């Protein structure tokens, strides 16, 4: 896996509008350092942290079919960004990010509160409610953006792409990667939380603290990714499901693979997006939206037993 990631990253460094060969790098490392390297790193960091956020949310909600981009977290973050863009456009990026993260936090708590009201024997209601909830927040965001003439911003935030990434404009993603790494330290806690409230309480897990930690991670990662590259749907959904199918949900074992697969798939999507309509670019989010949806459908319809 690590090997595959390295190969992908190397390829990514050499794909793009500006010609880049080994000799030209030696002459002028500018393109590599300012554009290609940051872009590759950004894709890797985004993919890894979004996939990790997805698996955490799934364990906290005890449901396989959710991810931050389909449960209102992303839309809430966008609402926060809109608010800060309207009222305090001069704030530094970190401040905007904080507002977006707080909004994402509130939005995710709202979703969790909603899911608590649903009957546990109907597991598919949870993703359904998540999608509708996200739809409502999205409609609110559209309305606000329309009134404030910020529809273009909305478009940028809603579709994840890496074409705007250059050195100096992606470094926040390291924070997202850090949050994902931090989550790994609490891997066992999240695994236990995934066994459900009852089992976690019986095992003496401080359930609400773990819940809070998980939600903060999810909200932070979502907000950071949206601020820098935009929403990347399906990564957080598909990657954990694929990994779980192969190696289960013991996060201490599986989390590195979740992160690695997420990073690889996002990078691959970005590369496909760069190549398919050369010299124009298709957003990585769109590319993965199609692949991811197809994989997810296959998973939904292909599952035989369902508890």
């Amino acid at each position, binding site marked *: 896996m690590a090997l595959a990631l390295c190969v992908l990253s190397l390829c990514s460094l050499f794909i793009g509008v500006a010609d880049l060969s080994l000799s030209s790098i030696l002459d002028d490392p500018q393109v590599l350092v300012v554009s290609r390297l940051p872009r590759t790193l950004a894709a890797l960091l985004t993919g890894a942290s979004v996939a990790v956020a997805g698996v955490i949310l799934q364990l906290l909600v005890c449901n396989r079919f959710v991810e931050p981009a389909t449960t209102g977290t992303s839309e809430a973050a966008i609402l926060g960004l809109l608010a800060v863009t309207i009222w305090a456009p001069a704030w530094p990026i970190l401040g905007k990010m904080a507002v977006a993260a707080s909004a994402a936090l509130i939005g995710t708590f709202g979703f969790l509160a909603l899911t608590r009201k649903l009957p546990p024997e109907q597991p598919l209601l949870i993703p359904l409610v998540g999608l509708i909830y996200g739809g409502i927040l999205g409609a609110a965001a559209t309305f606000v953006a329309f009134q404030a003439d910020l529809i273009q911003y909305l478009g940028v935030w809603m579709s994840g792409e890496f074409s705007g990434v250059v050195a100096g404009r992606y470094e926040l993603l390291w924070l997202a990667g850090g949050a994902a790494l931090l989550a790994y330290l609490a891997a066992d806690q999240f695994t236990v939380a995934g066994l459900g409230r009852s089992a976690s309480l*019986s095992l003496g897990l401080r359930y609400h603290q773990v819940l809070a930690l998980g939600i903060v991670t999810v909200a932070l990662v979502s907000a950071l990714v949206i601020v820098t590259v935009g929403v990347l749907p399906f990564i957080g959904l598909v990657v954990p499901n694929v990994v779980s199918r192969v190696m*289960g949900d013991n996060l201490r074992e599986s989390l590195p693979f979740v992160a690695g697969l997420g990073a690889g798939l996002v990078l691959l999507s970005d590369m496909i997006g760069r190549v398919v309509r050369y010299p124009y670019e298709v957003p990585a989010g769109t590319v993965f939206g199609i692949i991811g949806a197809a994989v997810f459908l296959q998973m939904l319809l292909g599952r035989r037993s369902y508890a």
Partner: protein
Amino acid sequence: MMKMSELSYSVSGTDILRDISVEIPARGMTALIGPNGAGKSTLLHLMSRQMEPMSGQVVIDGQDLATITAQARALKLAVVAQHLNIASRIRIRDLVGFGRWPHARNRPTAEDRAWVTDAMTHFDLIALQDRFLDEVSGGQRQRAFIAMAYAQDTEWLLLDEPLNNLDLHHARSLMARLRDMADHQGKSIVIVLHDLNYAISWADHVVALRAGRVAFEGPVQAMATGENLSNLYQTPVAMDHVDGRPFARYHR
């Protein structure tokens, strides 16, 4: 000894349990019985602080359960819930291993690993240990959760209808295992049971609930009378004795 005093619980204005005051003796098996909707599971949840009562308290060995930390509680008392449908895909070995989590947190020792193997042996899971939870049958999953609680090695073990998915063989051997734990390891076991004859032929004590109140409680031999049980279930129940244990006849 577990002492419950004036426990009440209600959901949106409707009383589920009212003023429950019962003492459950340590070292033995106590069965919670009663008709559907009597509040048996709720009482079990209150005992384990899975739910918090509106009023009243639960005291184990002089300690109020509400005042100790979650981890301290997990070292005293393990629970096996009734609904075990979890979305998480986890191997049986790992699940049972989490029973040692209150003891070892993230660093299991050789002793912890021995406990896990022991638990899997007792509950007939060795052959299944590498299987994922969603790839085994309902009964096997149930046994895995019971083994996890066993590995937790607590003085108190609370089980909510553990026989639900079990076949004849595994139901009987589970009850025998619990009996053995009560008799030889000094464990205190509280078990919600639907099958009246399982309850009265294996347990030492019964607590009978009806409509959110205690109908009767005490040693099985004294309390399991035809009259008591007929009143409890509002159905004629005749008592017999088989091999010196009470046996209820109500099937026709």
